[in-house]
């Protein structure tokens, strides 16, 4: 049985019942790596929040989400919060704002331990420092005692990674975890994520708008457009033989090495026009 099973998920918002996610179905096996790719506003993050049971109050959800044998929609808030951080966790996009400015970094990681394992302060600190070292921080002791504003973006993103991984969750949702980082830091963080996921055997749902980044971490990938899944398959398949015009555009923009010098760089609109939905 797969770890995460999403069937016909539809999310509507507000009084006008604006559709954010439209009939999305997919499944993710334990230890699998699944990329979810699409432009901003295509419903990627809403899908992730639905899996976590964290949609805002004005959202209307239909369809089914089964996570590790639990049907998300039927769980009470209390049981949901026991799942969150323990079975499923999330890495956020903005390292600048995803840490509480009034709390030392180490304590924020320890908090996740305390909530689920009920760990004592002493041993918790050792585990936190070990975890911070594992995500590639050079001086974990100092980072643990620092406030977020004393850390760089890359350091913060690793602290967030440590928060998501310290309870060895079965599923880690990464919501554009490297978008806010510059390219060199991005590469090292992705590498670390890859290693840590391998070591813990956790499954990963990796959300991004960047096909190149997704291909580094995932083996399967789905393409989302205006709330619908338009294409899915293995990364290699998608790269060599994209079917949907939007995917073709994505692949072309991700493979800048294929562009002849002097030629105009490709844009997605060369392949797919959003207003009409027609290919050119």
């Amino acid at each position, binding site marked *: 049985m797969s770890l995460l099973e999403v069937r016909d998920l539809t999310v509507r918002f507000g009084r006008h019942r604006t559709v954010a996610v439209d009939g999305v179905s997919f499944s993710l096996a334990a230890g699998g790596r699944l990329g979810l790719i699409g432009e901003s506003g295509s419903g990627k993050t809403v899908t992730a929040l639905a899996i976590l049971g*964290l949609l805002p109050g004005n959202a209307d959800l239909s369809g089914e989400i089964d996570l590790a044998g639990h049907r998300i929609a039927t769980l009470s808030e209390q049981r949901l*919060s026991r799942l*969150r*951080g323990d079975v499923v966790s999330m890495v*956020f996009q*903005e390292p600048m704002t*995803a840490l*509480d400015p009034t709390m030392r970094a180490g304590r924020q990681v320890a*908090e996740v331990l305390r909530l689920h394992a009920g760990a004592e302060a002493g041993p918790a600190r050792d585990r936190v420092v070990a975890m911070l070292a594992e995500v590639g921080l050079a001086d974990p002791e100092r980072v643990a005692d620092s406030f977020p*504003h004393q850390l760089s973006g890359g350091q913060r993103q690793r602290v967030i990674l440590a928060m998501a991984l310290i309870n060895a969750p079965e599923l880690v949702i990464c919501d554009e975890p490297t978008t806010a980082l510059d390219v060199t830091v991005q590469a090292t963080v992705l590498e670390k994520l890859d290693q840590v996921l391998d070591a813990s055997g956790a499954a990963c749902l990796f959300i991004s708008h960047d096909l190149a980044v997704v291909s580094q971490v995932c083996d399967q990938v789905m393409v989302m457009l205006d709330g619908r899944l338009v294409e899915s398959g293995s990364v290699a398949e998608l790269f060599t033989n994209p079917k949907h015009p939007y995917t073709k555009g994505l692949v072309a923009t991700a493979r800048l090495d294929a562009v002849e010098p002097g030629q105009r760089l490709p844009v997605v609109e060369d392949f797919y026009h959003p207003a009409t939905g027609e290919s050119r």
Partner: protein
Amino acid sequence: MKKAQLVAGLVLVGLVVLAAVVSLFWTPFDPIRVVPGERLAPPSLTHFLGTDGFGIDIFSRLLVGARTTLAVGIISVSLAAVFGVPLGMLAGQAGGWVDDVVMRTADVVYALPALLLAMLLASVFGASTTTAMIAIGVASIPAFARVARAGTLQVMAADFILAARVSGTSRWGVASRHVAPNIAPVIGVQASVGFAMAILAEAALSYLGLGTPRPNPTWGNMLRDAQNYLFVAPLQAVWPGLAIAVAVLGFNLLGDGLRDYLDPRLREVP
């Protein structure tokens, strides 16, 4: 410059606190005993600020009055904060009808001036320092609720709240561990400004005879007594007025200074 404000505020507030503390151990003369032979004496070396219409040393009354002023400020601000902050946080976090009920109720209380509330309480329970404290405290609850709600809304929109929820933190945990420490600075500023307002309100109430009754001295009822001799001994009205001005200015400066000092946008990154 920013720091000067804070320091000036601290000095002025310190003066008031010093006066109150000193009055606990020592006053030059008995602040309530009437001495008919020394009525309306001008300032001299024995009576630094002269005596009032009952022959009581004004300096002694001023010192003791600082005690009432601070007590009313502390108790009414605490009362307002203890009820207002949790209500504001509740409104901000729960949203929906809870938010509406709490904030509309706050609006209703806000529309009721502290003076009116004090008159109401005084007519039912009699004028006393306690009625003044309660009236000012209750009237200040909406201000604290509003500030706390606004702060909470701002904090709740931050990613780290979502991150905390994703880590399995309960709503209560979010409020106590993440929202409260993040809104503490604005509550501190509100407390300081609220303190200044409470001092003014207390002075007004005892001036009107709705606060601390005579013979116990407060700056407000000293002002009222001085009114009778305004043409004979005008200085008498100056002293309590000056004391009130110093205290109000002090707490306002402290509030503004704190706001600048605690503003994260102005905070230096070490």
